[in-house]
């Protein structure tokens, strides 16, 4: 583990913790963005350029903005009056810990299951593109269709009926 990894890990975890503990909703959204950025940098540190840049492009460029807009357009961004924790925080903590434990267990087991590779495989962006356009073209198209349907649905929900005066 290099020092870069520890810095990035600290950034990501601090962002995630801040996102659940801060009182102001917009601050929480910005903290989540910091956590996203930390994750993207972790991907880049693992030489996964495509995943890292896609993470920045999609999560910081679009999802964070969407979250922020949603906060502004709905309940307002005023600070919560009393504590930020809901009454069921203990149950939530237990579920989160359980999920983390299962994931951690699976990851730790996989180290033994798969023989150690001498060198990490080099996967260029071009390889990913070739795979997406040949072997995985059907899943890609299905995802695209799903997203288009979601987009059309969102517009339909937001739109007024024809006769309705406004």
């Amino acid at each position, binding site marked *: 583990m290099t020092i870069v990894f520890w810095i990035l890990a600290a950034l990501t975890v601090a962002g995630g913790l801040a996102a659940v503990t801060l009182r102001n909703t*917009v601050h929480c959204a*910005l903290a989540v963005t910091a956590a996203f950025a930390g994750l993207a940098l972790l991907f880049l540190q693992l030489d996964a350029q495509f995943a890292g*840049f896609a993470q920045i492009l999609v999560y*910081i460029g679009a999802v964070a*903005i969407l979250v922020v807009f949603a906060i502004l357009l709905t309940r307002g961004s005023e600070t919560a009056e009393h504590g930020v924790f809901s009454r069921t925080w203990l149950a939530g903590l237990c579920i989160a810990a359980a999920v983390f434990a299962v994931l951690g267990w699976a990851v730790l087991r996989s180290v033994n299951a798969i023989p150690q590779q001498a060198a990490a495989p080099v996967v260029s*962006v071009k390889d990913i593109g070739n795979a997406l356009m040949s072997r995985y073209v059907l899943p890609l198209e299905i995802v695209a269709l799903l997203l288009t349907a979601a987009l059309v649905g969102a517009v339909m929900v937001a739109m007024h009926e024809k006769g309705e005066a406004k």
Partner: protein
Amino acid sequence: MINTLDQIFVLLKQWIVGLFPEVLQPIVGIVLCVVAIIVTFPALFAIAVLMERKGLGRMQNRIGPNRVGPYGILQPVADGLKSLTKEDIVPYKADAVVHFMAPVVLVVVVFMGYAVLPMGRNMTLVHMDAALLFYFAIGACTELSVFMAGWASRNKYSLLGAMRAVAQMISYEVPLLMSSVAVVMITGSLSLDKIVEAQNQYTWGLPHWYIFTPWGLAGFLMFAIAATAETNRSPFDLPEGESELVAGYFTEYSGFKFAEFFLGEYVGMLSISGLGTTLFLGGWSAPLEVLGFMPSWFWFFAKIMLSMCVFIWLRGTLPRLRQDQLMNFAWKFVLPMTLLNLLVAALWRFLGDGWLRWVVCSAILLGAYVLVGRTEMRRRHYGPRSYRYAE
């Protein structure tokens, strides 16, 4: 001699790096490149601001700045000193931390884009396989800084300006990406170095720039429109429309923080000009084969300063759009045209060499543009404006 002049900055860097012990050399090399970028582009920013103030003045039938230095050429220095010495006012109700972070994030993010731009032969800071993707990923972060500025100011004008800016930047980022994808399809690489190399060839002394192909010309036009909107420049400068919103998202910024926003805007313009140059105008390659004796970096910087002139010219010429026109233009004209351009680029790729692809591609694009123009001219009517709000 010619070669030395072409590689002068590379040689200079190697010489300076050679002065340091072996262990420090990689770090010194990187720091040197970063410092060079951080010095060069603000200097160009100063020149661009002077050009804009003088040029715009002439276009508006006035003289422009002429008090500081001969012909007012020291005006940027005076502006810089003024913004450094001015009092920095933070509103009482503002969110101090986010208010402080917003301009810093903007400037950092804008400068990071330069890391992948090839500014001359062997003059790219980071040779990246996915350089174009990196550029757009970094560009997407500027929206967040704009939002942070607008929200943290606790001012309704700031917030409205930020909302407008973010909506506009997201809308125009899609055509910006789509018009660049055509270049990637033809070159077969996301690396900006390879894109420039592919254009650095000559037939009969004329360059193989992508702008000289039908899909390239159409793509470049759409790219230029989207880039103007992406940098919030006139005629797409609604986010800072001074008659409606004081100054948009940076209304509550003063002193050096205001200067940072100003710097961010202009350095962003220079950067997107650099990207447009790299993608469509051949990057650092000379416009004619006989001009190849001039250094490659000269052509890159000449091209981006020329693009800056076009930005200034547009600002002096075109009236500002309305919000609904802006959105309709992005989603109903620019985006469909870039999608059509993708199709044409694919045809260009698979029709093979020869005159056939020139005829087919030009015919499709010309037909589409003429058809759209004709129908829109017929349909135009000047009624009261109508809005349709989403709830």
